[in-house]
């Protein structure tokens, strides 16, 4: 739910795939969209949406990225940059 996904191919290049999949590719053609957000936009519950996304992942149509949460793996500079970004947001 908290991973983000992103289109690995442009929706226009994948005309032969089901329409529902094309919709997903369009929704995730940005800097990444959370699975929770995608599910809400598709008006699906989380689990069925995740199952659907797994199929696209398997086909290499999307890529996914888990959230950054391990403080040890995160340097303090990154935390500071989030903070200053937030201050300007």
């Amino acid at each position, binding site marked *: 739910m908290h991973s983000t996904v992103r289109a690995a191919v442009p929706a226009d290049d994948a005309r032969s795939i089901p329409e529902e999949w094309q919709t997903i590719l369009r929704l995730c053609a940005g800097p990444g969209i959370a699975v929770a957000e995608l599910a*809400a936009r598709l008006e699906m519950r989380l689990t069925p949406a995740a199952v659907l996304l797994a199929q696209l992942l398997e086909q290499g149509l999307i890529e996914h990225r888990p959230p950054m949460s391990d403080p040890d793996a*995160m340097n303090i500079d990154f935390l500071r940059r989030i903070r200053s970004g937030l201050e300007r947001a």
Partner: protein
Amino acid sequence: MNEPDTRAPDAVRDTYLPPVKILVAGGFGVGKTTAVGTVSEITPLRTEERLSAAGVGVDDLSGIEQKSATTVAMDFGRITLDVAVLMLFGTPGQERFWFMWDDLLRGALGAVVLVDTRRLDRSFAAVDFFESRDLPFVVAANCFHGEQDYDPEEIRDALTLREPSTPIVLFDARRRDSVRGVLLALMDHLIASAEPAHAQRT
């Protein structure tokens, strides 16, 4: 598909920003949905999940015929920064769904635990929950009256917070600056904990 490298549209070429997950938790009706909505750059969304009866107390299902599953909703909002995308997850407030918080905790960088100063006694459970987990959090006291009857230290005492370094912020869930201030306090807390000086003896 002759030149796949040069044909990628802007959207696909864009950097894939690292996602960062922040929980907005707290008891029933403390302002979680309001807070997520106020600070989010998108209209806040509700993500639903179906839970099997196994996770829900039997009492909750008594009297519901044929119902072996229930739907629980989380709030979702986001803030896109230049270095990351903050994903805000508002937890369900009803206590019977709290078992789900452990799932929600996974992958989170930190949490904001909202409390309502009019009903501090009803905030113990939420604060307790986070004190017994590893996740760094700040306590944000929602000013329902527009002014606070308490100051942070009184709230700290009333909540019997164990960890003296846990920040307590007063805020108004309806004001964007105010909610952002809470997130900044969380970042400060995370930064302070990550700073080498944190390990110093006093």
